Protein backbone atom coordinates (compact mmCIF):
# COMPACT_ATOMS: atom_id res chain seq x y z
CA UNK A 1 0.00 0.00 0.00
CA UNK A 2 1.33 3.39 -0.85
CA UNK A 3 1.53 6.20 1.63
CA UNK A 4 -1.25 8.05 -0.16
CA UNK A 5 -3.62 5.13 0.40
CA UNK A 6 -2.65 4.75 4.06
CA UNK A 7 -3.12 8.46 4.73
CA UNK A 8 -6.48 8.60 3.02
CA UNK A 9 -7.85 5.50 4.75
CA UNK A 10 -6.73 6.66 8.21
CA UNK A 11 -7.97 10.22 7.66
CA UNK A 12 -11.29 8.76 6.55
CA UNK A 13 -11.55 6.62 9.69
CA UNK A 14 -10.74 9.54 12.00
CA UNK A 15 -13.20 11.73 10.11
CA UNK A 16 -15.96 9.13 10.34
CA UNK A 17 -15.48 8.69 14.10
CA UNK A 18 -15.57 12.46 14.68
CA UNK A 19 -18.59 12.88 12.42
CA UNK A 20 -20.53 10.04 14.06
CA UNK A 21 -19.81 11.26 17.59
CA UNK A 22 -20.74 14.82 16.70
CA UNK A 23 -23.97 13.79 14.99
CA UNK A 24 -24.96 11.59 17.96
CA UNK A 25 -24.43 14.40 20.47
CA UNK A 26 -26.18 16.97 18.27
CA UNK A 27 -29.14 14.67 17.67
CA UNK A 28 -29.52 14.06 21.41
CA UNK A 29 -28.84 17.64 22.47
CA UNK A 30 -31.27 19.22 20.01
CA UNK A 31 -33.83 16.51 20.78
CA UNK A 32 -34.06 15.55 17.12
CA UNK A 33 -35.47 12.12 17.90
CA UNK A 34 -38.63 13.68 19.36
CA UNK A 35 -38.93 16.28 16.59
CA UNK A 36 -38.62 13.67 13.90
CA UNK A 37 -40.80 11.17 15.74
CA UNK A 38 -38.03 8.58 15.53
CA UNK A 39 -37.91 5.93 18.19
CA UNK A 40 -34.33 4.72 18.69
CA UNK A 41 -33.81 1.26 20.20
CA UNK A 42 -33.22 1.07 23.95
CA UNK A 43 -29.45 0.56 23.71
CA UNK A 44 -29.03 3.67 21.53
CA UNK A 45 -26.78 6.18 23.31
CA UNK A 46 -27.39 9.87 23.96
CA UNK A 47 -31.09 10.17 23.23
CA UNK A 48 -32.26 12.73 25.79
CA UNK A 49 -31.10 16.37 26.15
CA UNK A 50 -31.12 15.99 29.94
CA UNK A 51 -28.50 13.28 29.83
CA UNK A 52 -24.83 13.97 30.64
CA UNK A 53 -22.36 13.36 27.84
CA UNK A 54 -20.51 10.58 29.65
CA UNK A 55 -22.07 9.92 33.03
CA UNK A 56 -19.97 8.68 35.94
CA UNK A 57 -21.99 5.49 35.89
CA UNK A 58 -21.23 4.66 32.26
CA UNK A 59 -17.60 5.64 32.72
CA UNK A 60 -17.13 3.25 35.64
CA UNK A 61 -19.45 0.60 34.30
CA UNK A 62 -16.85 -2.10 33.72
CA UNK A 63 -14.20 -0.89 36.14
CA UNK A 64 -14.69 -3.91 38.36
CA UNK A 65 -14.33 -6.41 35.53
CA UNK A 66 -10.94 -8.04 35.34
CA UNK A 67 -10.63 -7.43 31.60
CA UNK A 68 -11.30 -3.66 31.75
CA UNK A 69 -7.91 -2.20 32.63
CA UNK A 70 -5.84 -4.54 30.43
CA UNK A 71 -8.18 -3.72 27.54
CA UNK A 72 -7.98 0.05 28.11
CA UNK A 73 -4.21 0.02 28.49
CA UNK A 74 -3.74 -2.35 25.57
CA UNK A 75 -6.02 -0.31 23.31
CA UNK A 76 -4.28 2.95 24.20
CA UNK A 77 -0.87 1.32 23.67
CA UNK A 78 -1.93 0.12 20.22
CA UNK A 79 -3.21 3.61 19.42
CA UNK A 80 0.05 5.23 20.56
CA UNK A 81 2.23 2.82 18.60
CA UNK A 82 0.00 3.09 15.53
CA UNK A 83 -0.05 6.88 15.44
CA UNK A 84 3.71 6.97 16.07
CA UNK A 85 4.20 4.70 13.06
CA UNK A 86 1.84 6.83 10.99
CA UNK A 87 3.71 9.99 11.94
CA UNK A 88 7.09 8.40 11.23
CA UNK A 89 5.87 7.29 7.80
CA UNK A 90 5.19 10.95 6.92
CA UNK A 91 8.51 12.27 8.15
CA UNK A 92 10.71 9.47 6.86
CA UNK A 93 13.12 10.56 4.18
CA UNK A 94 12.38 8.18 1.37
CA UNK A 95 15.33 6.15 0.25
CA UNK A 96 18.96 5.79 1.18
CA UNK A 97 21.65 8.38 0.65
CA UNK A 98 23.54 6.40 -1.99
CA UNK A 99 22.90 3.86 -4.73
CA UNK A 100 25.03 0.96 -5.95
CA UNK A 101 26.19 1.36 -9.53
CA UNK A 102 27.02 -1.76 -11.59
CA UNK A 103 30.62 -2.00 -12.80
CA UNK A 104 30.68 -4.61 -15.54
CA UNK A 105 34.16 -5.79 -16.44
CA UNK A 106 35.75 -4.60 -13.21
CA UNK A 107 35.15 -7.43 -10.77
CA UNK A 108 36.86 -6.06 -7.69
CA UNK A 109 35.39 -2.60 -7.94
CA UNK A 110 32.29 -1.61 -6.03
CA UNK A 111 30.90 1.77 -6.84
CA UNK A 112 28.24 3.80 -5.09
CA UNK A 113 26.83 7.14 -6.19
CA UNK A 114 25.21 9.61 -3.84
CA UNK A 115 21.49 10.01 -4.54
CA UNK A 116 21.86 13.78 -4.57
CA UNK A 117 24.63 13.55 -7.17
CA UNK A 118 22.37 11.44 -9.37
CA UNK A 119 19.55 13.95 -8.92
CA UNK A 120 21.84 16.82 -9.81
CA UNK A 121 23.03 15.02 -12.93
CA UNK A 122 19.40 14.51 -13.93
CA UNK A 123 18.61 18.16 -13.21
CA UNK A 124 21.49 19.32 -15.36
CA UNK A 125 20.45 16.96 -18.13
CA UNK A 126 16.88 18.16 -17.97
CA UNK A 127 17.80 21.83 -17.85
CA UNK A 128 19.71 21.50 -21.12
CA UNK A 129 16.68 20.12 -22.95
CA UNK A 130 15.12 22.63 -25.36
CA UNK A 131 12.74 25.23 -23.90
CA UNK A 132 13.46 24.27 -20.28
CA UNK A 133 14.01 27.20 -17.95
CA UNK A 134 14.54 25.36 -14.67
CA UNK A 135 14.28 21.80 -13.53
CA UNK A 136 14.27 19.98 -10.21
CA UNK A 137 14.43 16.20 -9.97
CA UNK A 138 14.12 13.85 -7.00
CA UNK A 139 14.57 10.13 -6.77
CA UNK A 140 11.93 8.63 -4.49
CA UNK A 141 12.52 5.09 -3.37
CA UNK A 142 9.49 3.34 -2.10
CA UNK A 143 10.65 -0.20 -1.28
CA UNK A 144 11.41 -1.90 -4.57
CA UNK A 145 9.81 0.85 -6.65
CA UNK A 146 12.29 3.61 -7.36
CA UNK A 147 10.85 6.41 -9.43
CA UNK A 148 11.76 9.91 -10.50
CA UNK A 149 9.73 12.99 -9.75
CA UNK A 150 10.54 16.09 -11.66
CA UNK A 151 9.32 19.69 -11.60
CA UNK A 152 10.07 21.53 -14.81
CA UNK A 153 9.43 25.12 -15.83
CA UNK A 154 9.24 25.81 -19.54
CA UNK A 155 10.06 29.05 -21.29
CA UNK A 156 7.08 30.93 -22.82
CA UNK A 157 5.49 29.01 -25.66
CA UNK A 158 7.31 25.81 -24.70
CA UNK A 159 6.07 22.46 -25.92
CA UNK A 160 5.09 20.18 -23.01
CA UNK A 161 4.60 17.08 -25.16
CA UNK A 162 8.09 17.43 -26.63
CA UNK A 163 9.52 17.89 -23.15
CA UNK A 164 7.93 14.65 -21.94
CA UNK A 165 9.35 12.80 -24.92
CA UNK A 166 12.82 14.32 -24.58
CA UNK A 167 12.95 13.62 -20.86
CA UNK A 168 11.81 10.05 -21.35
CA UNK A 169 14.36 9.21 -24.01
CA UNK A 170 17.10 11.46 -22.61
CA UNK A 171 17.89 11.90 -18.90
CA UNK A 172 15.52 9.21 -17.65
CA UNK A 173 16.74 6.51 -20.04
CA UNK A 174 20.38 7.48 -19.37
CA UNK A 175 19.91 7.20 -15.61
CA UNK A 176 18.14 3.87 -15.97
CA UNK A 177 20.88 2.35 -18.08
CA UNK A 178 23.73 3.69 -15.94
CA UNK A 179 22.13 2.30 -12.82
CA UNK A 180 21.36 -0.99 -14.52
CA UNK A 181 17.78 -1.02 -13.28
CA UNK A 182 15.08 -2.84 -15.24
CA UNK A 183 12.81 0.18 -15.12
CA UNK A 184 12.75 3.69 -13.76
CA UNK A 185 9.38 5.37 -14.22
CA UNK A 186 9.08 9.12 -13.89
CA UNK A 187 6.42 11.73 -13.14
CA UNK A 188 6.86 15.27 -14.35
CA UNK A 189 5.08 18.39 -13.17
CA UNK A 190 5.27 21.00 -15.89
CA UNK A 191 4.74 24.73 -15.65
CA UNK A 192 4.95 27.22 -18.47
CA UNK A 193 6.01 30.83 -18.15
CA UNK A 194 4.15 33.62 -19.88
CA UNK A 195 5.72 36.05 -22.31
CA UNK A 196 2.88 38.57 -22.48
CA UNK A 197 3.63 41.33 -19.99
CA UNK A 198 0.02 41.93 -18.95
CA UNK A 199 -0.05 39.34 -16.22
CA UNK A 200 3.62 39.17 -15.41
CA UNK A 201 3.41 41.45 -12.40
CA UNK A 202 1.02 39.15 -10.66
CA UNK A 203 3.22 36.12 -11.17
CA UNK A 204 6.60 37.68 -10.60
CA UNK A 205 6.92 36.41 -7.06
CA UNK A 206 6.04 32.93 -8.14
CA UNK A 207 8.57 32.89 -10.97
CA UNK A 208 11.61 33.37 -8.85
CA UNK A 209 10.98 30.27 -6.84
CA UNK A 210 12.81 27.14 -7.74
CA UNK A 211 10.45 24.48 -9.03
CA UNK A 212 9.48 22.29 -6.14
CA UNK A 213 9.21 18.53 -6.26
CA UNK A 214 6.20 17.50 -4.28
Amino acid at each position, binding site marked *: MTRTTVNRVLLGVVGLVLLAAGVLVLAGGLDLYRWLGADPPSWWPLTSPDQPVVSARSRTRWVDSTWWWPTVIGGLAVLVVGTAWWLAAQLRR*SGSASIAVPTPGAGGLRLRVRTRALEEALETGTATLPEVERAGVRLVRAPGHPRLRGAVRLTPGGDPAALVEHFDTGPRADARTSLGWPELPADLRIRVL*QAAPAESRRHRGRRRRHPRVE
Partner: protein
Amino acid sequence: MSTGGEAAPGSEVGAGGEVEAGGEVTAPEAEPSSEQVRRLRAPRTTVAVLVATVLLVGAGALLYDVISVRAGYPTRRWRARIADELATRHLDDLWVLVGAGAAVLLGGWLLWLAVAPGLGRWLPLRPHGDTGAAIDRAGIGHLLADRAAGLPGIDDLRIRISRRRVRVALTGTADPVSLQRQLRDELARVTLARPLRLDVRTVPGATPAANREAGVAG
Protein backbone atom coordinates in the same frame (compact mmCIF):
# COMPACT_ATOMS: atom_id res chain seq x y z
CA MET B 1 7.23 13.02 -2.01
CA SER B 2 6.44 9.38 -2.54
CA THR B 3 3.18 8.65 -4.17
CA GLY B 4 4.96 5.81 -5.94
CA GLY B 5 3.55 2.45 -6.90
CA GLU B 6 0.83 1.55 -9.31
CA ALA B 7 -1.47 4.46 -8.56
CA ALA B 8 0.57 7.06 -10.37
CA PRO B 9 -0.03 7.81 -14.05
CA GLY B 10 2.18 6.24 -16.64
CA SER B 11 3.60 3.58 -14.38
CA GLU B 12 2.69 0.79 -16.79
CA VAL B 13 4.93 0.30 -19.76
CA GLY B 14 2.18 -1.30 -21.82
CA ALA B 15 -0.19 1.59 -21.30
CA GLY B 16 2.44 4.09 -22.36
CA GLY B 17 3.27 2.15 -25.51
CA GLU B 18 -0.34 1.89 -26.61
CA VAL B 19 -0.90 5.55 -26.09
CA GLU B 20 2.14 6.40 -28.10
CA ALA B 21 1.04 4.23 -30.99
CA GLY B 22 -2.48 5.68 -30.92
CA GLY B 23 -1.13 9.19 -30.76
CA GLU B 24 0.90 8.77 -33.93
CA VAL B 25 -2.02 7.58 -36.02
CA THR B 26 -4.69 10.05 -34.97
CA ALA B 27 -3.26 12.92 -33.04
CA PRO B 28 -6.40 14.99 -32.31
CA GLU B 29 -8.52 12.09 -31.06
CA ALA B 30 -7.29 10.96 -27.68
CA GLU B 31 -10.47 9.23 -26.59
CA PRO B 32 -9.12 5.65 -26.27
CA SER B 33 -6.27 6.72 -24.04
CA SER B 34 -8.10 9.24 -21.86
CA GLU B 35 -9.42 6.61 -19.47
CA GLN B 36 -6.02 5.02 -18.91
CA VAL B 37 -4.46 8.10 -17.38
CA ARG B 38 -5.82 8.63 -13.90
CA ARG B 39 -6.12 11.89 -12.08
CA LEU B 40 -3.34 12.72 -9.69
CA ARG B 41 -4.10 12.10 -6.05
CA ALA B 42 -2.62 14.27 -3.34
CA PRO B 43 -0.77 12.30 -0.63
CA ARG B 44 -2.32 14.47 2.16
CA THR B 45 0.94 14.53 4.08
CA THR B 46 0.39 17.73 6.05
CA VAL B 47 -3.05 16.82 7.32
CA ALA B 48 -1.84 13.32 8.19
CA VAL B 49 1.03 14.81 10.24
CA LEU B 50 -1.38 17.10 12.12
CA VAL B 51 -3.96 14.40 12.85
CA ALA B 52 -1.33 11.82 13.82
CA THR B 53 0.37 14.32 16.17
CA VAL B 54 -2.88 15.23 17.91
CA LEU B 55 -3.86 11.56 18.31
CA LEU B 56 -0.39 10.60 19.51
CA VAL B 57 -0.24 13.34 22.15
CA GLY B 58 -3.78 12.65 23.39
CA ALA B 59 -3.47 8.88 23.52
CA GLY B 60 0.02 9.05 24.99
CA ALA B 61 -1.04 11.38 27.80
CA LEU B 62 -4.08 9.25 28.58
CA LEU B 63 -2.03 6.03 28.56
CA TYR B 64 0.60 7.56 30.84
CA ASP B 65 -2.03 8.72 33.31
CA VAL B 66 -3.97 5.45 33.29
CA ILE B 67 -0.81 3.48 34.00
CA SER B 68 0.31 5.85 36.74
CA VAL B 69 -3.12 5.58 38.39
CA ARG B 70 -2.92 1.79 38.20
CA ALA B 71 0.51 2.02 39.84
CA GLY B 72 -1.03 3.83 42.82
CA TYR B 73 -0.51 7.50 42.04
CA PRO B 74 -3.46 9.92 42.20
CA THR B 75 -5.31 10.94 39.01
CA ARG B 76 -3.94 14.00 37.26
CA ARG B 77 -6.06 17.09 37.57
CA TRP B 78 -6.72 17.47 33.84
CA ARG B 79 -8.20 14.00 33.52
CA ALA B 80 -10.37 14.37 36.64
CA ARG B 81 -11.57 17.73 35.32
CA ILE B 82 -12.48 16.36 31.89
CA ALA B 83 -14.28 13.35 33.40
CA ASP B 84 -16.13 15.68 35.76
CA GLU B 85 -17.19 18.07 32.97
CA LEU B 86 -18.39 15.21 30.79
CA ALA B 87 -20.39 13.77 33.68
CA THR B 88 -22.05 17.05 34.73
CA ARG B 89 -22.71 18.89 31.46
CA HIS B 90 -25.89 17.78 29.77
CA LEU B 91 -26.39 17.29 26.10
CA ASP B 92 -28.28 20.56 25.64
CA ASP B 93 -25.45 22.54 27.25
CA LEU B 94 -24.24 25.23 24.84
CA TRP B 95 -20.59 24.17 24.95
CA VAL B 96 -21.47 20.54 24.35
CA LEU B 97 -23.48 21.53 21.29
CA VAL B 98 -20.70 23.82 20.02
CA GLY B 99 -18.18 21.04 20.52
CA ALA B 100 -20.39 18.54 18.71
CA GLY B 101 -20.88 20.95 15.82
CA ALA B 102 -17.13 21.46 15.58
CA ALA B 103 -16.61 17.68 15.60
CA VAL B 104 -19.14 17.29 12.77
CA LEU B 105 -17.44 19.97 10.68
CA LEU B 106 -13.94 18.64 11.34
CA GLY B 107 -15.00 15.05 10.67
CA GLY B 108 -16.74 16.02 7.44
CA TRP B 109 -13.66 17.95 6.33
CA LEU B 110 -11.35 15.00 7.04
CA LEU B 111 -13.71 12.68 5.15
CA TRP B 112 -13.69 15.08 2.23
CA LEU B 113 -9.88 15.17 2.28
CA ALA B 114 -9.82 11.37 2.32
CA VAL B 115 -12.11 11.04 -0.69
CA ALA B 116 -11.42 14.08 -2.91
CA PRO B 117 -8.49 13.61 -5.29
CA GLY B 118 -6.90 17.00 -4.70
CA LEU B 119 -4.17 18.46 -6.89
CA GLY B 120 -6.87 20.02 -9.04
CA ARG B 121 -4.49 22.47 -10.65
CA TRP B 122 -2.51 19.70 -12.35
CA LEU B 123 -3.97 18.21 -15.53
CA PRO B 124 -2.41 14.91 -16.64
CA LEU B 125 -0.77 14.67 -20.04
CA ARG B 126 -0.57 11.60 -22.21
CA PRO B 127 2.44 9.59 -21.03
CA HIS B 128 5.40 8.87 -23.25
CA GLY B 129 7.10 5.55 -22.57
CA ASP B 130 7.71 5.38 -18.84
CA THR B 131 7.28 9.08 -18.19
CA GLY B 132 3.97 10.43 -17.01
CA ALA B 133 3.42 14.14 -16.75
CA ALA B 134 0.95 16.76 -15.61
CA ILE B 135 0.74 20.41 -16.51
CA ASP B 136 -0.25 23.36 -14.41
CA ARG B 137 -3.63 24.85 -15.38
CA ALA B 138 -2.09 28.30 -15.26
CA GLY B 139 0.59 27.05 -17.64
CA ILE B 140 -2.05 26.18 -20.23
CA GLY B 141 -3.47 29.66 -19.73
CA HIS B 142 -0.04 31.16 -20.39
CA LEU B 143 0.38 29.14 -23.59
CA LEU B 144 -3.05 30.24 -24.85
CA ALA B 145 -2.47 33.88 -23.90
CA ASP B 146 0.89 33.92 -25.66
CA ARG B 147 -0.59 32.38 -28.79
CA ALA B 148 -3.36 34.99 -28.84
CA ALA B 149 -0.98 37.84 -28.08
CA GLY B 150 0.33 37.94 -31.64
CA LEU B 151 -3.10 38.22 -33.24
CA PRO B 152 -4.54 41.55 -34.39
CA GLY B 153 -7.83 42.96 -33.21
CA ILE B 154 -7.78 41.70 -29.63
CA ASP B 155 -8.23 44.39 -27.02
CA ASP B 156 -8.68 42.14 -24.05
CA LEU B 157 -8.72 38.43 -23.53
CA ARG B 158 -9.97 36.68 -20.41
CA ILE B 159 -9.02 33.03 -20.19
CA ARG B 160 -10.57 30.86 -17.51
CA ILE B 161 -9.56 27.24 -17.28
CA SER B 162 -11.48 24.66 -15.31
CA ARG B 163 -10.72 20.96 -15.22
CA ARG B 164 -13.00 20.30 -18.20
CA ARG B 165 -13.15 23.37 -20.36
CA VAL B 166 -11.48 26.61 -21.30
CA ARG B 167 -13.65 29.70 -21.46
CA VAL B 168 -12.24 32.58 -23.43
CA ALA B 169 -13.93 35.96 -23.36
CA LEU B 170 -12.76 38.14 -26.22
CA THR B 171 -13.06 41.90 -26.38
CA GLY B 172 -12.16 43.45 -29.70
CA THR B 173 -12.70 43.20 -33.42
CA ALA B 174 -10.95 39.87 -33.96
CA ASP B 175 -12.92 37.02 -35.46
CA PRO B 176 -13.78 34.57 -32.67
CA VAL B 177 -13.83 31.62 -35.07
CA SER B 178 -10.28 32.14 -36.25
CA LEU B 179 -9.17 32.79 -32.69
CA GLN B 180 -10.81 29.56 -31.64
CA ARG B 181 -8.95 27.73 -34.41
CA GLN B 182 -5.64 29.15 -33.25
CA LEU B 183 -6.27 28.31 -29.61
CA ARG B 184 -7.44 24.81 -30.52
CA ASP B 185 -4.14 24.23 -32.33
CA GLU B 186 -2.31 25.39 -29.23
CA LEU B 187 -4.36 23.09 -26.99
CA ALA B 188 -3.74 20.12 -29.29
CA ARG B 189 0.00 20.75 -28.88
CA VAL B 190 -0.30 20.19 -25.14
CA THR B 191 -1.56 16.57 -25.59
CA LEU B 192 -3.72 16.46 -22.49
CA ALA B 193 -4.94 13.03 -21.46
CA ARG B 194 -8.45 14.47 -21.24
CA PRO B 195 -8.75 17.17 -23.87
CA LEU B 196 -10.34 20.40 -22.70
CA ARG B 197 -13.38 21.85 -24.40
CA LEU B 198 -12.82 25.29 -25.78
CA ASP B 199 -15.44 28.05 -25.80
CA VAL B 200 -14.59 31.40 -27.32
CA ARG B 201 -17.15 34.15 -27.16
CA THR B 202 -17.10 37.84 -27.78
CA VAL B 203 -18.08 40.12 -24.94
CA PRO B 204 -19.45 43.54 -25.88
CA GLY B 205 -17.05 45.51 -23.59
CA ALA B 206 -17.18 48.50 -25.96
CA THR B 207 -15.57 51.00 -23.62
CA PRO B 208 -11.89 50.01 -24.00
CA ALA B 209 -12.12 49.94 -27.79
CA ALA B 210 -13.95 53.25 -27.95
CA ASN B 211 -11.44 54.85 -25.62
CA ARG B 212 -8.54 53.66 -27.68
CA GLU B 213 -10.03 54.90 -30.94
CA ALA B 214 -10.78 58.23 -29.35
CA GLY B 215 -7.20 58.42 -28.13
CA VAL B 216 -5.84 57.67 -31.60
CA ALA B 217 -8.13 60.21 -33.24
CA GLY B 218 -7.29 62.93 -30.73
